[in-house]
């Protein structure tokens, strides 16, 4: 079957979209082209703010109050959607084109039962009776593999979990059997394991219903798993598009290349092969340079060529479906293009600085159901946490949302008191020492980097004053001039311009804020820094910059880093040792090597399998977890993972607490499986020989 003979389901030609704001017109998307054949899955990737969602909404012809399509056309099955009347649009929306959004909770009406929200679609599009509509909805819920559709139909959105909500939204989108399904970051808000399930589902659907997909994500790994074609966007325009395989292996745009080199794929290493972030920042829509928008950040920029006129999308070879928006793509020697960043010797770890033994933290909460008077529940957020951290060591704590990672951080920081156990910092026991009672010395030795860059800085105070406050508070410097000097030094360290000291947090991008957060954390020369998911909210390229920064500072100060994350690829890149947590308990701990290769704890195995990897040479074993994470207030009595474990042994796992098996010195797995079974496990990730033309990752040097 020749693709070109069919009418494309969707075709965007020279699409230009602008927002009209108080600052004037913002061209959010410029000259966007896309052709989507029936049954095809097309991915769109790009940094935050590059216009991905705008494209998706434009395809739905929904531009909000201040948006408008200012040029080009969108052809849906050959018809220009811009010429359609409101009524025609209404009929197409939801029936022929459907959309799934990033945040499932927010896109479901909180005060309507899910059944009704689902049934609406066939009722209003096909005029079927209510009973039929309900029946169809129920079937659809079953086909997105939701357990007990009956119950879900009668629930309100908040009564089901995020993963289930996202499945409901997908079911809603599929109800009218649409020709085109738009997925705008459908899994960003979900845990990796849940994400893996949804991705699996989407793949099945496109196969089963023949629906065309547009899959939007900033996660190249996900795109690789779901799509056959790909468009890379940068600052409102597509910079490269083509088949997945081609783009992933023979990328022709410096930006695409930059993106790939900032992803911590297996093989990257903080000492030997550090990630490379793209320098500079995404230009604001109204501050774009002339010529190539990527010009100022590009290593191959040639003045007089790259900054002239408007660049067209060019086919890489005539007739190929691989296009690139670069005037010099043919001139660049891709194999020599990348100069490797500096290599470092691994850091020698020092003495033990932190000793956590049998630390537990339980919360008591009032029971939610108000009818029962005064029932109390205990949430075991941390159960018998034991580990040691050495000077200049990076210890990562990984686990799904709610497993108690932040709780641990809070206990350490003295914001919560431990219920049991000891947390020894030098000779001080911090377990029950609230921050108010800690000495200045202890406080200044322990600092924290917070998860959410948008939350970590007080919006009311300037960046400089927030950093200098720490300096003065911990008595590093007192003299105002010296304090200012020190602030400037710190800004230099985190690679921010010095005049940022006067800026307010709202004038900073997420990555910049996070860097200020890091500067602040290191301002008091701490010995131990806890970083609670410092990069999970950031774009890949920024993420690379921030992780690089952390290692640099650590190397210089010999700081111990407790790195909390749910993202195993970052962890693999950064950590010396890893602790895998589930429902408040440690499932496995050991060196990075040990964790990433068999023997695995079954949970570690599943986690590894769930992480999408943007590398065509990597092959993964699929292990999709079913079931939900049990409520932390009512965990299973035995192994907490027994409800979802593919290896579960009924009668043992669900009743007895698993033993701590020491597979190697300091490599501990808490599992009932016998040692032989564990050792016999196959690796989840295997790297096949590369077929890339250039040693991109290994780099030539």
């Amino acid at each position: 079957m020749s693709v070109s003979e069919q009418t494309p389901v969707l075709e965007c030609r020279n699409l230009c979209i602008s927002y009209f704001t108080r600052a004037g017109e913002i061209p959010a998307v410029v000259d966007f082209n896309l052709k989507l054949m029936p049954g095809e899955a097309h991915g769109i990737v790009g940094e935050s703010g590059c216009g991905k969602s705008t494209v998706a909404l434009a395809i739905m012809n929904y531009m909000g109050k201040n948006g408008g399509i200012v040029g080009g056309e969108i052809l849906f099955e050959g018809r220009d959607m811009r010429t359609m009347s409101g009524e025609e649009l209404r009929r197409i929306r939801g029936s022929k084109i459907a959309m799934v959004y990033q945040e499932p909770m927010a896109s479901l009406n909180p005060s309507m039962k899910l059944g009704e929200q689902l049934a609406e679609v066939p009722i209003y599009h096909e005029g079927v009776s209510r009973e039929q509509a309900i029946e169809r909805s129920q079937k659809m819920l079953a086909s997105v593999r939701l357990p007990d559709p009956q119950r879900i139909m009668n629930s309100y959105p908040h009564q089901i979990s995020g993963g289930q909500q996202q499945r409901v939204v997908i079911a809603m989108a599929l109800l009218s059997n649409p020709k085109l399904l738009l997925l705008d970051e459908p899994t960003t808000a979900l845990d990796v394991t849940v994400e893996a399930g949804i991705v699996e589902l989407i793949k099945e659907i496109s196969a089963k219903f023949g629906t065309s997909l547009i899959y939007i994500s900033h996660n190249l790994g996900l795109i690789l798993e779901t799509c056959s074609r790909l468009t890379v966007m940068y600052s409102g325009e597509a910079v490269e598009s083509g088949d997945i395989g081609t783009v992933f292996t023979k990328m022709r745009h410096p930006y695409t290349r930059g993106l790939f080199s900032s992803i911590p794929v297996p093989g990257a290493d903080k000492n030997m092969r550090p990630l490379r972030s793209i320098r500079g920042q995404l230009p604001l829509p109204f501050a774009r340079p002339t010529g190539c928008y990527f010009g100022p950040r590009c290593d191959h920029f040639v003045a007089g060529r790259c900054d002239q006129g408007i660049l067209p999308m060019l086919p890489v070879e005539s007739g190929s479906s691989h296009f690139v928006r670069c005037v010099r793509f043919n001139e660049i020697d891709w194999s020599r293009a990348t100069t490797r960043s500096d290599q470092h010797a691994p850091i020698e770890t020092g003495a033990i600085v932190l000793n956590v033994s049998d630390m537990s933290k339980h919360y008591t909460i009032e029971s939610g159901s108000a009818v029962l008077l005064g029932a109390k529940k205990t949430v075991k957020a941390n159960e018998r946490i034991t580990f040691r951290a050495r000077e200049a060591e990076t210890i990562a704590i990984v686990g799904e949302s709610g497993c108690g990672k932040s709780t641990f951080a809070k206990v350490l920081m003295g914001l919560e008191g431990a219920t049991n156990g000891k947390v020894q910092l030098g000779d001080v026991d911090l377990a029950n020492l609230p921050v108010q009672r800690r000495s200045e010395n202890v406080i200044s030795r322990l600092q924290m980097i917070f998860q959410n860059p948008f939350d970590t800085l007080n919006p009311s105070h300037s960046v400089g004053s927030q950093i200098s406050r720490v300096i003065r508070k911990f008595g590093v410097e007192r003299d105002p001039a010296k304090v200012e000097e020190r602030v400037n030094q710190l800004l230099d360290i985190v690679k921010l311009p010095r005049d940022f000291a006067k800026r307010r947090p709202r004038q900073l991008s997420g990555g910049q804020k996070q860097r200020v957060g890091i500067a602040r954390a290191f301002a008091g020369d701490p010995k131990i820094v806890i970083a609670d998911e410092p990069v999970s909210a950031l774009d890949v390229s920024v993420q690379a910059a921030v992780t690089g920064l952390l290692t640099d500072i650590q190397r210089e100060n010999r700081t111990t880093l407790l790195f909390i994350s749910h993202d195993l690829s970052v962890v693999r890149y950064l950590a010396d040792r890893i602790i895998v947590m589930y429902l408040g308990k440690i499932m496995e701990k050991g060196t990075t090597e040990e964790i990433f290769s068999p023997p695995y704890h079954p949970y570690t195995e599943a986690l590894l399998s769930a992480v999408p990897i943007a590398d065509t040479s990597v092959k993964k074993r699929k292990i999709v977890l079913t079931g939900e994470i049990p409520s932390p207030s009512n965990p299973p009595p035995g192994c907490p993972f027994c409800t979802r474990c593919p290896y579960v042994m009924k009668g043992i796992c669900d009743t007895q607490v698993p033993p701590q098996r020491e597979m190697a010195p300091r490599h501990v797995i808490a599992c009932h499986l016998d040692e032989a079974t564990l050792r016999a496990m196959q690796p989840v990730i295997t790297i096949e020989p590369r077929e890339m033309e250039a040693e991109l990752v290994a780099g030539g040097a």
Partner: protein
Amino acid sequence: MAAITSIPVSPPPLSILKILQQPRSLIVLVLLMWLPLMLNVMLAGSISETVRPYLLLPAIPSALILYGVGVLSWRESPIAIIGLTLIFFWLIVAVSVPFLPLVDPNKPIAPFAPIGAVKNNHYFILGADFKGRDMLARTLWGCQRVLVWGVTATLVAYLVGCIFGLVAGYLGGWWDQVISFIANVLLSFPVMVLFILIMNYLGASGFNIVIAVTFASAPAIMRIVRGLTFDTKNRDYIFAAQTRGEHPLRIMIYELLPNARGPIIVDACLRLGYTTVAITTLTFLGLGLQPPDPDWGLMIKEAANVAKSPQFAYMLLIPALSVSSLILGFNLIADGLREMSLRD
């Protein structure tokens, strides 16, 4: 290929404007405008009559500059500018009224002189009230007391409400229990009884109005601030402050309070309106500000009887519309601020 639309860049704002927009210079200007006005009204008795008008001299340019700065910085929101104009109209009148060519607002000249009449050698632009006093002079003078007492009462109520709200919200636990209970007691007290008790107990005066309004408004403000504090106190930057061992007081004032200012300012604009009405109502019931100086509440009260005959309705409508325009101004500013903060 679609052209890349160039963004019309707004003309570079004057550097003077930039300087004036700085919080520090704004505060200076506000104080320059407000303090003389406040002294003038609150200590009316104890300032000698000769000095009194000159006190207001620095306030006039300050008010004008503030208005200009306000218009320039809010120029994107016509609603806010209309509100600002209404309020500054009255503010500028308030500070400049001693210098306007007006007759003594308390001088009975020709009772019931209608609008536009010339009686007893006086041209009544807005007519005279039933005692024969010039309505124009009374209306213009009247804004002083309403503005000063309304704003002061609201400010004091906010001060008290914020302190308790911060303490209750941030410290939680027993503090919260006790403060919330007291707030509930005050809130479930009928406002009128509260007002009457206070005004009766302390006597009717501007300062006691401030106390009464504080009692009536502070619990509600406390709740708002408490709610906002609950919201913000789990932000990472608060944890950051805690983990560097900051004193709770500092956290409340430096870290929490500035971030609650958005909703607080909007609420304050609305509450200023209610306070103005409350003061007017108190005066109407004979519990509020007392003569001799004119104020709108008093004018409404005095005119309520006469104004029932339509030909004298102006005696009531003029002060009522003045109150209304002021409240409208506060409301519009609140609206404008909200819309501006929502806009992207």
